[in-house]
C-alpha cells in the first residue's frame, strides 16, 4: 500500500513571499505519479502541479515548483510570490497506473496581507 504524509497541518506566509510545503510518501513502485492539489473553501480540488517519477527534472508551473527527491521519497511544493488567492488546503497525492489516488492529510496554507 502507498501512504502519503504531510507533516505540516498549517502554514502561513506573508503576501509576496515564498513558502514550501512538505510531502513524503512510501511505495515499492518504481514508476508512479505525484500531484499537488489545491482545495479552496468551495471544495473543488484544483490541480496545481504534477510530476512523473521517471522524470528527474522538477516540474514547474508559473509560481509553483516542486523539489522531487525520488531516493528520499520526498515531493515538496514551493510557492513563490504568494498571493492572497493561494490561501487554501493543499493536498499531496500519489498515483500508480492511473488508478486511485492516495492523498495526504493536507496542509492549510494562509497567505497574510
Amino acid at each position: 500500500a502507498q501512504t502519503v504524509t504531510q507533516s505540516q497541518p498549517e502554514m502561513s506566509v506573508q503576501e509576496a513571499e515564498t513558502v514550501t510545503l512538505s510531502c513524503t510518501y512510501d511505495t515499492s513502485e518504481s514508476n508512479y505519479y505525484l500531484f499537488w492539489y489545491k482545495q479552496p473553501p468551495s471544495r473543488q480540488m484544483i490541480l496545481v502541479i504534477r510530476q512523473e517519477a521517471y522524470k528527474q527534472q522538477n516540474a514547474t508551473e508559473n509560481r509553483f515548483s516542486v523539489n522531487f527527491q525520488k531516493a528520499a521519497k520526498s515531493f515538496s511544493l514551493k510557492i513563490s510570490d504568494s498571493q492572497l488567492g493561494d490561501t487554501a488546503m493543499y493536498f499531496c497525492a500519489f498515483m500508480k497506473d492511473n488508478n486511485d489516488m492516495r492523498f495526504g492529510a493536507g496542509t492549510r496554507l494562509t497567505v497574510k496581507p
Partner: protein
Amino acid sequence: GAGVSQSPRYKVAKRGQDVALRCDPISGHVSLFWYQQALGQGPEFLTYFQNEAQLDKSGLPSDRFFAERPEGSVSTLKIQRTQQEDSAVYLCASSLVLAGRGSNQPQHFGDGTRLSIL
C-alpha cells in the same frame, strides 16, 4: 458544463434513511472515481469505474455503500441505512484514460456533495 458535476451540493438525512449522490463526469472520460473526505482530512478512495465496469470497490467502507455507472457515463453512489459516521464530503473525479496505460492524465474533481446525517 465542461467540468465534473455533482448533485446535490448539500444533503441532510436522518439516520437510517437511504441517500443517492449523483456524478456527471466530463464528457468522454473513461475513468470515474468516488472519494470520501471527512472533515479536516484528505480524500479517501472508495471505488473506481472504467466505463460501466466497476473495477475496484475496495474502499467502500461497508455493504451499505453501493455505486453504479450503468451506461458508462453518469454514476450514482448510494448509501443505505445511513449512520452518523457517513457524514462527509463525497467527491467524484473523472479521467480521460484507461487504467494501466501509465499516463499522467490527472483526475478532474467535482465540487462534491456534503452529506450530513442527523
